[in-house]
């Protein structure tokens, strides 16, 4: 790692100011993606501003059909929260599939969503459940939040404070993992929400995306068989040492059927 200054503010206002004052600052939450990036010297921020000392970023609450999760909530806490498991079991199950137990004890939901790794799990739940990101400046709907490879609608020094998930009628997640990294080769989150069926695919392309053909088919009949014959364009898939575009496109269909099956219980 290159050298950097480290700060651990107690308030959001201090955090934004520290980042603004830094020549090239970065926020850090759990650091399970950022620290490996720094260790490989792929980034060299002048300052790290640690958000985990800010009390208002923590906490889980469920009320009025909304699950609200503080941005620095760890994956392990989401996976084991009785409240979340009762309201949106698919979300708790997804959290329990991220990394391994020790990684889940550090990594945070806000960090994962803000980073928008193309193979991360949470973006699919955020998009699939039509969640809303509450930030220090505004509310951002999932459909306009994820803008590209590692890109989001967040502005410089804007911080996600919490994420609100409307409780769906039913939802399911299925992930085909890369056996070494445990990241999704393909992950599909399917949800039957008040606004219709949503299908969000992660890992397969450069950014999480909604599969509109599958949504239309599942709206008519919410069953794995409804997805028969729906093709995914290999040209839109990632093509790398872990799998070709054709392989990933095929996996999207297989994994989506399993996600629907999971939603049906």
């Amino acid at each position: 790692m290159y050298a950097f200054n480290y700060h651990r503010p107690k308030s959001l206002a201090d955090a934004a100011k520290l980042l603004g004052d830094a020549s090239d600052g970065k926020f850090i939450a759990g650091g399970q993606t950022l620290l490996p990036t720094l260790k490989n010297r792929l980034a060299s921020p002048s300052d790290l501003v640690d958000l985990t000392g800010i009390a208002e970023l923590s906490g889980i609450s469920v009320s009025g059909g909304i699950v609200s999760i503080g941005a620095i909530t760890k994956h392990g806490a989401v996976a084991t929260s009785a409240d979340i498991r009762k309201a949106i079991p698919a979300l708790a199950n997804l959290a329990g599939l991220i990394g391994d137990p020790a990684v889940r004890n550090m990594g945070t939901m806000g960090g994962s969503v803000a980073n928008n790794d193309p193979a991360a799990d949470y973006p699919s739940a955020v998009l699939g459940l039509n969640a809303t990101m509450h930030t220090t400046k505004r509310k951002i709907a999932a459909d306009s939040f994820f803008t590209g490879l590692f890109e989001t609608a967040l502005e410089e020094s804007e911080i996600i404070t919490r994420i609100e998930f409307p409780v769906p009628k039913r939802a399911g997640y299925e992930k085909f993992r890369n056996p070494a990294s445990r990241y999704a080769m393909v992950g599909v989150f399917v949800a039957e929400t008040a606004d219709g069926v949503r299908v969000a695919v992660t890992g397969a392309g450069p950014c999480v995306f909604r599969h509109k053909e599958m949504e239309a088919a599942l709206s008519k009949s919410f069953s794995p068989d409804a997805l028969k014959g729906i093709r995914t364009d290999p040209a839109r898939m990632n093509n790398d040492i872990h799998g070709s575009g054709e392989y990933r496109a095929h996996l999207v269909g297989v994994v989506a059927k399993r996600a629907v099956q999971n939603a049906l219980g």
Partner: protein
Amino acid sequence: MTISVTINVNGQPETRDVEPRTLLVQFLREHLQLTGTHVGCDTSQCGACVVHVDGKSVKACTILAAQAQGAKVTTIEGLAQDGKLHPMQEAFREHHALQCGFCTPGMIMSAVDLAQRHPNPNEETVRHELEGNLCRCTGYHNIVKAVMAGAQAMRG
């Protein structure tokens, strides 16, 4: 530039002036000479560096010492009490759950955390929970036996 970091390590408050980029595992090994915590892959995959931070297993190669400021850290050196091995350590010895022994400190720290969350784990649970700990001697068979026996001994 250095910063002052205080971490309670194995029941003892330890304060050191370190560079902000110091990892917790470097703090333990290089500043406190607690070399029981191993660095295997340095990429958060192998689990040889697992320690407990406020009672939960964490990969010490992927957390800054500064992030553990004020926390309680337990390393493999902190498990035995009054010269008596922790039940999980004893189970690893009894079941010969090591070959070269390099992964053992991390395996045991993960196993203790596992047993605290799953007091009566079956084999499937143990194998699943240890997915973040690699044994390159591939000695998993006896490790799994030891973890199940150690969890039972911890129940008392």
